[in-house]
């Protein structure tokens, strides 16, 4: 062969999943080829110019703790930072930022190109090859044949992608980009099952045609918080910060949209793929919530230099002229120029029961699926999977133990466990309510939960890890101090009275006092004699640590209870089911459940119990079988 090339790992697609996978694997010592259609489009945001949000922000923090890059790039290119849910408890605080779309992609490109052992090849993969159920290589459009030990497919919405604005289908994976043809067939031939999903994006508007004076402004936080521990808080935020704006549709707007329903590719049945229920198009919203007189829209800047505004909440695949007329009927947008209309895209995905918890496919060894190809939607969900796939592909090549995060350890664990077990048939997005151990899966403790893994894999630097260990030590001392030191009434009652908090009769620990909603740890510590208690000074000087410590102390009871639940669950998780267990003979289990179990091949009773279609009675029966 002429163009014969060899790599340990090939990654298809430099989207959010692909770059995490490629970088992690290269940093862990594999030679990696990242094959993507367009070098300029590395880390491109297909849709919303924003990173994070409820539960997604958590994932970004987890990626960062594991040594991934998403948080760092988001910090460097963010033009508005907010912490959502600040009025609620710390487990649902979630970071979100508006990104400069162009800078985000450039920054991602720089990180990719600056990574050793990592070659970027601009090409499209048409075919993948296996021998004896093991992946061996790929062939590209330009005729290159490349061998590999592991192949990670992170092809996003590009597999047989078809875009719709109105009833005219256009083949493509994303605005202005081609679709990937051929690869799906290659996998179908290997025995995989593919299906279709759909997603959509709203129109982009010309910024200078908007009348912002009549719109409600939504600025970022006064005290913005970064995602990454590697971000230097002193020089943060890096870029100037901007605002978003709010506006609403009304019944008049809805009337206009309805005129286009007869040319809607959705309503006409041209699109058969299932769309995300939590992120419907505007036409869907009007139909499904017909009695709602208005829908909220966010005007999000696409970047500092960009003259584009992203109309969040107005995703549509109606004909362009209908979109245009409707947008012009919205308050503040009367004179709008539409840079380009919204569209829907339909693409192939591989129902994720076909992968294992490592994201390796069950059918072909060495083949990994990550990101939208597994039926998720969202950059963060994609990136988290990419990281896990990259790490696992490498661990396997290096003959090391696999990496599976538990549901009690990370949202990424919940994500992959859900994918494999429930095998989504609509685009999957993370929510905090998907995590049964929500109280212990917080942003503030992401590093405490996960940095040890990142360090073990060599993805987190020694300096960073030592820094973490130092702060962890302080944390543990802090907890100890707060739980043991009793403050006497005479030393604290003055302070308590000043805070409208009831005075105490006997000595009380800090840990107990800080559980009062009206008291802050910082203020309690400030009442202490710093020369007598040498720990107080370093605690007070470390604002981040102080907050983490306060959370651990204030919610101690709840956190403890949650850990008890985790332990209870662990028993089920530890009841292992033998590999390739034959369910077909268990004729006491319902046919549906047997099929599902055989499909998913769960590793444990815990995992089996979460498979939809498998009833608790089925699980009890299975348990009895395994016992006997």
């Amino acid at each position, binding site marked *: 062969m002429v163009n014969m090339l060899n790599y340990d790992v090939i990654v298809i697609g430099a989207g959010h999943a692909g770059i995490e996978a490629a970088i992690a694997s290269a940093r862990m010592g594999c030679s990696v080829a990242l094959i993507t259609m367009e070098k300029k489009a590395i880390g491109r945001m297909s849709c919303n110019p924003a990173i994070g949000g*409820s539960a997604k922000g958590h994932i970004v923090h987890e990626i960062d703790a594991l040594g991934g890059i998403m948080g760092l790039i988001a910090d460097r290119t963010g033009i508005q930072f907010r912490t959502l*849910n600040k009025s609620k408890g710390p487990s649902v605080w979630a970071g979100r930022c508006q990104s400069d779309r162009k800078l985000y992609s450039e920054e991602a490109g720089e990180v990719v190109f600056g990574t050793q052992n990592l070659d970027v090849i601009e090409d499209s993969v048409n075919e993948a090859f296996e021998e004896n159920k093991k992946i061996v290589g790929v062939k590209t459009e330009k005729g290159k044949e490349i061998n590999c030990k592991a192949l990670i497919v992170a092809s996003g919405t590009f597999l047989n992608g078809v875009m719709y604005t109105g009833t005219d289908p256009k083949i493509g994976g994303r605005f202005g980009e081609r679709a990937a043809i051929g690869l799906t067939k290659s996998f179908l031939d290997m025995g995989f099952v593919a299906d279709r999903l759909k997603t959509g994006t709203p129109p982009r508007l010309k910024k200078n045609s908007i009348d912002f004076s009549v719109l409600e402004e939504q600025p970022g936080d006064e005290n913005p918080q970064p995602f990454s521990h590697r971000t230097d808080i002193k020089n943060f935020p890096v870029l100037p910060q901007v605002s978003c704006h709010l506006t609403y549709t009304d019944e008049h707007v809805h009337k206009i949209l309805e005129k286009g329903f007869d040319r809607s590719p959705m309503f006409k049945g041209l699109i058969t793929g299932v769309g995300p229920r939590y992120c419907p198009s505007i036409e869907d919203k009007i139909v499904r919530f017909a009695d709602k007189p208005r829908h909220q829209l966010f005007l999000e800047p696409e970047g500092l230099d960009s003259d584009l505004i992203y109309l969040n909440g107005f995703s549509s695949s109606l004909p362009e002229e209908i979109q245009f007329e409707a947008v012009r009927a919205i308050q503040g947008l009367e004179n709008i120029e539409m840079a380009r209309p919204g569209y829907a895209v339909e693409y192939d995905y591989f129902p994720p029961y076909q992968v294992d918890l490592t994201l390796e496919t069950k059918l072909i060894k060495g083949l990994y699926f990550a990101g939208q190809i597994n039926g998720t939607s969202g950059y963060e969900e994609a990136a988290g999977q990419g990281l896990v796939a990259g790490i696992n592909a490498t661990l396997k090549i290096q003959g090391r133990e696999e990496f599976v995060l538990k549901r009690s350890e990370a949202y990424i664990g919940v994500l992959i466990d859900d994918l494999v077990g429930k095998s989504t048939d609509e685009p999957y997005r993370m*929510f905090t309510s998907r995590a049964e151990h929500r109280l212990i899966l917080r942003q503030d403790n992401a590093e405490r939960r996960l940095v040890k893994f990142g360090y073990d894999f060599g993805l987190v630097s020694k300096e960073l890890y030592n820094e973490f260990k130092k702060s962890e030590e302080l944390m543990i001392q802090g907890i100890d101090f707060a739980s043991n030191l009793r403050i006497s009434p005479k030393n604290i009652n003055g302070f308590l009275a000043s805070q409208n908090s009831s005075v105490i009769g006997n000595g009380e620990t800090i840990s107990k006092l800080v559980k009062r909603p009206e008291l802050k740890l910082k203020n309690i510590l400030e009442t202490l004699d710093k020369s007598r208690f040498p720990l107080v000074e370093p605690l007070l000087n470390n604002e981040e640590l102080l907050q983490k410590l306060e959370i651990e102390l204030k919610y101690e009871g709840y956190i403890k209870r949650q850990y008890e639940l985790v332990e209870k669950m662990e028993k089920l998780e530890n009841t292992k089911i033998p590999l390739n267990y034959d369910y077909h003979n268990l004729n006491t289990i319902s046919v549906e459940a047997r099929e599902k179990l055989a499909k998913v091949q769960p590793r444990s009773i815990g995992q089996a119990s979460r498979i939809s279609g498998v009833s608790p009675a089925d699980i009890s029966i299975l348990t009895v079988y395994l016992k*006997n």
Partner: protein
Amino acid sequence: MLYSHEDTITAIATPIGVGAISVIRVSGSQSIEKVDSIFRGKKKLEDSKSHTIHYGRIYSQSNEVIDDVLISIFKKPNSYTGEDSIEISTHGNPLITQKIIDALLENNVRLAEPGEFTKRAFLNGRMDLAQAEAVADVINSRTEVSLHGARNQLDGLLSKKIDLLREMLIHSSSLIELELDFAEEDIQFVSLKEVKEEIEDIIAEIEELLKSYSFGKIVRDGVKVALVGQPNVGKSSLLNYMLKESRAIVSHIPGTTRDVISEEISVEGLFIKLFDTAGIRFAEDDIEKEGVERSRQAIENADIVIYMFDVTSDFGLELYEEIEKTIPEDRIITVANKIDLGKDLSHSADAEISALTGEGIPELFSLLKEISLGSNIYTEKSAVVSSLRHYNILKKAKENLFSAVKSIENKLSGEFIAVDLRNAENLLGEIIGKVSTDDILNNIFSKFCIGK
């Protein structure tokens, strides 16, 4: 290897030594064939339809007739276990049943383990966890009322009720979750006050169920009745009379204290544990505190006290008042005895009897039943909690819900409320088997005795 479902198992399904008829049950894929090989009737059982009854004879290995029997055929899946099953009804002689069992064993039928029939029924999807537990109760229950309560649960009333509560809870949870995951959305969030009311409704329902437990417990464990009174009023005579009248004498348990004697009897389907105490003298100046003390244990443990006095003697007011300090008045039945000697009562009584002639005793029984079961609070239509495990789980669920209400009152954020709701939901799920742990299964299946 795996639990073998291919085995055919057998056991006696009726209590040993009781009743005129014994039932032997056989279940498993070969049950019909196996019984055929020891049975001779008009027609081969193999060629017969499900749910038919056949008369014939059972023969031993050495070709001797063991007994005339009736055989009922239940083909899968329409049998108790969900497998092919046979029920052999024989004469209630322990020797006969034993011989038939032996004949089956010789044909490679295996003796069932405790609870194995129900285990199979459960495994074959014939019942959910709560129903399986109720079957355990059926087996352990000794009397009609008991059976009635257990059957009622069998029908899934409790399961249905719990399922409903769980759905209500899931509803409340979703209201809370909505605000946590979709705070940015332009939706009208339900006020926490409303969620609180919903939760309180569920708590009320659970409390109702918890209350039913004392009823359920009486149904299952029986009612404890202490016979108390001055010496010689006729307590022991009443006990003896009752024993004679109730045909199902279950056991004779020596009293915990030297002086207390306990007997178990069944009256009109109600299971009663009678405690006969030593008579207590309570003369004006000479208070035998010690006597009261001796019987106090029995009185304290009793659900109901029968206070007996002799119509020909005094009522014994002081003693009565002393007893009233231990047990509420509505749990004391005053009984005037020896009315065969005269009906001129020195004191009014709830029942007037003669332990000698038996006069008035049926009325006393009715009174006992009414007081122990309450007057029709629980009909066949109500879900009743009769298992201690269910009771404890419901109590825990209630605590979780209380804690959720408290969190709302303390204005804590939704995720703290959600934890408690989720816990409660999982607990309810445990009752109906929507969350399954080994412990539950082990516990249930070890509780079963052979035959059901």
